[in-house]
């Protein structure tokens, strides 16, 4: 192709500039997290964390409020992941292996439900949780989260389940394995990547969720990590904030997410745009 050298260099420079711009907030978070407040308070910003320390992280990690929020987040997230995987796996099995009456409406309902905004529901969910006595309870939040992630999880999993040929299982049964054993020995291992991808999806949703948690977890002790992080922002409105600590806190919340996200990203986006892009 006759693209000239200069135009290619220009494009590369442009791409690097955009890359820098987009990653900058993430870098700025890390950078500030390592800098002491004295440095951050100066009128000129410091762009490299030289001479920085992990003091901010130490302060955050030893803060009892952080530990409590971490515990709540872990319980809610893990409950959601396990429950969502079980429920969604059964659902995915139904829609990818069976043709049954109402199947099409079930799938349409799932896809529509997946689009419903939490913001259009949270008042009613608050009311329901409060009348069930589940306000500020991890279980209540996990139930709401599971319901929120199950539709898309089924959608993601159904491709994996359909990808495992039923013949294979049947063949194993012919060879004398029981239906359950054939499933456990043959189908399940083949499904593992799908389960991992969907599990990570559920994890990300539950770990990051803010809206429903804000409404349902009203007490200080029941706060999840995003709510705890928001507490810093609220405080910054009225007084000087130790931004180094806030950034260290944000980094701690973001780190597992970034790692998991990079694992599962491809699957998630192909589920969202569906057949419009054939991967």
């Amino acid at each position: 192709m006759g693209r000239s050298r200069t135009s290619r260099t220009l494009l590369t420079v442009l791409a690097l500039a955009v890359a820098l711009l987009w990653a900058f907030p993430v870098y700025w978070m890390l950078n500030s997290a390592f800098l002491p407040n004295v440095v951050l308070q100066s009128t000129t910003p410091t762009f490299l964390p030289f001479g920085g320390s992990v003091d901010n992280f130490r302060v955050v990690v030893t803060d009892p409020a952080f530990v409590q929020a971490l515990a709540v987040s872990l319980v809610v997230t893990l409950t959601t992941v396990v429950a969502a995987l079980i429920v969604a796996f059964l659902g995915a099995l139904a829609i990818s292996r069976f043709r049954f009456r109402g199947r099409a409406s079930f799938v349409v309902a799932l896809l529509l439900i997946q689009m419903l905004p939490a913001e259009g529901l949270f008042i009613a969910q608050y009311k329901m949780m409060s009348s069930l006595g589940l306000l500020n309870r991890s279980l209540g939040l996990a139930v709401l989260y599971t319901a929120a992630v199950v539709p898309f999880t089924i959608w993601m999993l159904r491709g994996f389940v359909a990808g495992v040929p039923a013949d294979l299982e049947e063949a194993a049964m012919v060879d004398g394995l029981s239906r359950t054993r054939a499933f456990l020995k043959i189908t399940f291992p083949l499904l593992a990547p799908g389960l991992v991808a969907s599990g990570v999806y559920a994890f990300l949703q539950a770990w990051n969720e803010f809206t429903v948690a804000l409404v349902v977890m009203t007490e200080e002790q029941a706060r999840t990590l995003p709510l705890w992080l928001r507490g810093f922002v609220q405080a910054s409105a009225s007084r000087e904030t130790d931004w180094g600590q806030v950034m260290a806190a944000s980094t701690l919340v973001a780190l597992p997410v970034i790692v998991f996200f990079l694992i599962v990203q491809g699957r998630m986006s192909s589920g969202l745009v569906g057949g419009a892009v054939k991967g």
Partner: protein
Amino acid sequence: MSTTPAVGAPPAGRRGAGTPRQDRPTRPGGRRLPLLLILPTLVLLVVALGYPIGWQLVTSFREFGLMQQFGAPPAWVGLDNYRSLVTDPELWQVVVRSLVFCVVTAVLTVLVGGALAILMNALDRLPRLVLQVSLLLAWAMPVVASMTVWIWIVDWRRGLLNWLLTRVGVEAAQGHNWLSQPLSFLAVACVIVVWMSVPFVALSIYAGLTQVSAEVIEAATIDGASFLQRLRHIILPLIAPVLSIVILLQLIWDLRVFTQIKVLQDAGSVANETNLLGTYVYQLGTGKGDFGSASAVSVFMLVLTVALSWYYVRSLMKEDS
């Protein structure tokens, strides 16, 4: 050897009873099995989503304020909640503000995302990888963590933005609080939302672009088509399906934007003048305790979302069948 039957086999395919997949429902108990499998999903969705939607619909026709929260029976008021909302200038301001915010943000996101996709397509391998990793990093950030960083960047006392602007000669930027004025508040929110949404859009459109065959483009170039002509007559029609889905998703997501606005408001702004639909419902419900009106606005949001989602769901269904 039997091959795996096509997923979308027509009902007539039932006669081919040799194919294992269609065999199953006729197996003893097989008819009930799929229903049993979707039962947990159904129960969960009905309890956690169906019931609240129903409650909300009912409550939107009732007077449900602070008195009712403390035990007074909610009275039926018919369409009163809707009527008072429709005649309330504040609601219309919120609706118009939300729609404008949604359209502006979605359009900007798709334009920037599309431009980056075209850029990626034209790049060599290494710079493209760098750009993709950078976009993925931004995409991976949890919303609230991103918000704290952005609030730190636009902080009026020591934020990077004001320092930069002052450096390049905008003296007025020193100590300027961007979040105190509704317009600049929403502009900041728009920039943040665009920043977080562009990666998904750019990578999806890029995935669509890679499907456009290089030979076709080359042939058109040889025939003398300019870049814009190629874009309009070859590339756009070919990536139209991705583009329409991405635009639609963006509109839906930007209409319901809540976390970003709420957290920005927490950082110090006048909530009344910066409310979008989500934060407005929140304020009506938890702030004023007016569940009747909050439910009515929620119902409006749900109906709007379902209407917008319909096309999206249909296009996904096509893939399924």
